[in-house]
């Protein structure tokens, strides 16, 4: 068996999973399972949210250690699912290494939903969230509009490759401004805080929090800590965006918001 190719395959699977929001221990587990199909005795892998290290060792052969740096993390659960299925098929020996390698390269760029559909989903997710929190239909409508604005901004900026930090600040600023506009200029909608909360929900670091907890429980403290930092920075930038919008409004129109 070509162990270099196997190593490359395992790291690519790991990279696809890590880039798209899988938990650290799952990535390590997957890499180990793939590497176990080799005839090397020692297998180690070490994964952090920003890089993957894996090594194969044996007494009478040279060690082999590969490092893969991971940038640009995003969330794409479909690709995680695909990578999971490919590695399972490979470990069951139902596909060959070459086929598996080809399909993981394909899975890394597999298209999912169209951009327009994502924008509408962000709008609807935010709008319906107002209902979930017990808001009226008017609140839901305002939130839907704010969500559409946010979705459009998010998708465009992601396309341009702007940092997530910037998207979160400006995005939450824009949604708050839309909410303030509807409530105070058009006198439409009832609860300002409910509208703002619902419309920033698509930005909230749910994935970072979930993965931080899962990694920490599993003893991957480095990953857990860095994901908690990630979640904290996202939360802080959302808060900054909303805070700036409210303060500007306050200083122009003076006091009383709710």
């Amino acid at each position: 068996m070509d162990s270099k190719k196997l190593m490359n395959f395992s790291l690519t699977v790991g990279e696809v999973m890590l880039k798209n929001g899988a938990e650290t221990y799952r990535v390590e587990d997957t890499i180990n399972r793939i590497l176990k199909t080799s005839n090397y005795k020692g297998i180690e892998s070490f994964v952090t949210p920003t890089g993957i290290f894996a090594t194969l060792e044996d007494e009478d052969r040279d060690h082999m250690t590969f490092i893969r740096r991971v940038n640009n993390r995003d969330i794409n659960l479909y690709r995680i699912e695909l990578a999971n299925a490919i590695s399972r098929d490979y470990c069951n020996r139902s596909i060959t290494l070459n086929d598996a390698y080809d399909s993981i390269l394909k899975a890394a760029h597999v298209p999912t939903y169209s951009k327009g559909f994502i924008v509408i989903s962000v709008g609807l997710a935010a709008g319906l969230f107002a209902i979930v929190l017990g808001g009226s239909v008017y609140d839901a409508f305002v939130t839907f509009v704010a969500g559409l604005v946010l979705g459009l901004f998010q998708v465009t900026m992601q396309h341009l490759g702007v940092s997530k930090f910037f998207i979160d600040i400006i995005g939450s600023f824009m949604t708050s401004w839309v909410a303030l506009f509807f409530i105070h200029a058009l006198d439409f909608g009832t609860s300002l805080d409910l509208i703002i909360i619902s419309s920033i929900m698509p930005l909230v670091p749910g994935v970072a929090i979930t993965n931080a907890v899962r990694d920490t429980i599993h003893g991957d403290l480095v990953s857990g800590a860095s994901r908690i930092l990630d979640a904290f920075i996202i939360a802080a930038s959302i808060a900054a965006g909303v805070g700036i919008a409210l303060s500007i409004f306050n200083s122009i129109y003076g006091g009383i918001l709710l």
Partner: protein
Amino acid sequence: MMIQVFAAYFVTIFFAIIFKTSKNQLLISGFVGAVGWWGYLMVIHYDYSIVTGSFIGAFLVSLLANLFSKIRKSPVTIFQIPGIIPLVPGMGMYKTLYAVIEEDYNLVAKQLFETLQIAGSIAVAMMLIFSLSTLIEQHISKKA
């Protein structure tokens, strides 16, 4: 209340789309989220605190996510991440921020602490289910 649960179903589905879950998993993700939110609302309805509600909600979400991941042979995260979203303490985060702007630091401390409690209870619920599922898995693999 049923309207809220129904809305939670669709909210979870749209969040699952934002997180790019594949089409054939969407309906299940929605179900997981709706049951979690139903559990949360029931607990609140019987006059228990938001913290308890979030715990029960996250517990149900994690339980179902683990169950469905076994049935559908796909990673737990696919169901858990969208499902947990309605429970994330966005309200607490906003209220904390608002108190900061109002410069009412007693309120800041109160809100911040409550938000952390909610986040903590969600984390504990996830940990419990995670540990349980690992135990059960080990039990099954020993038998096999």
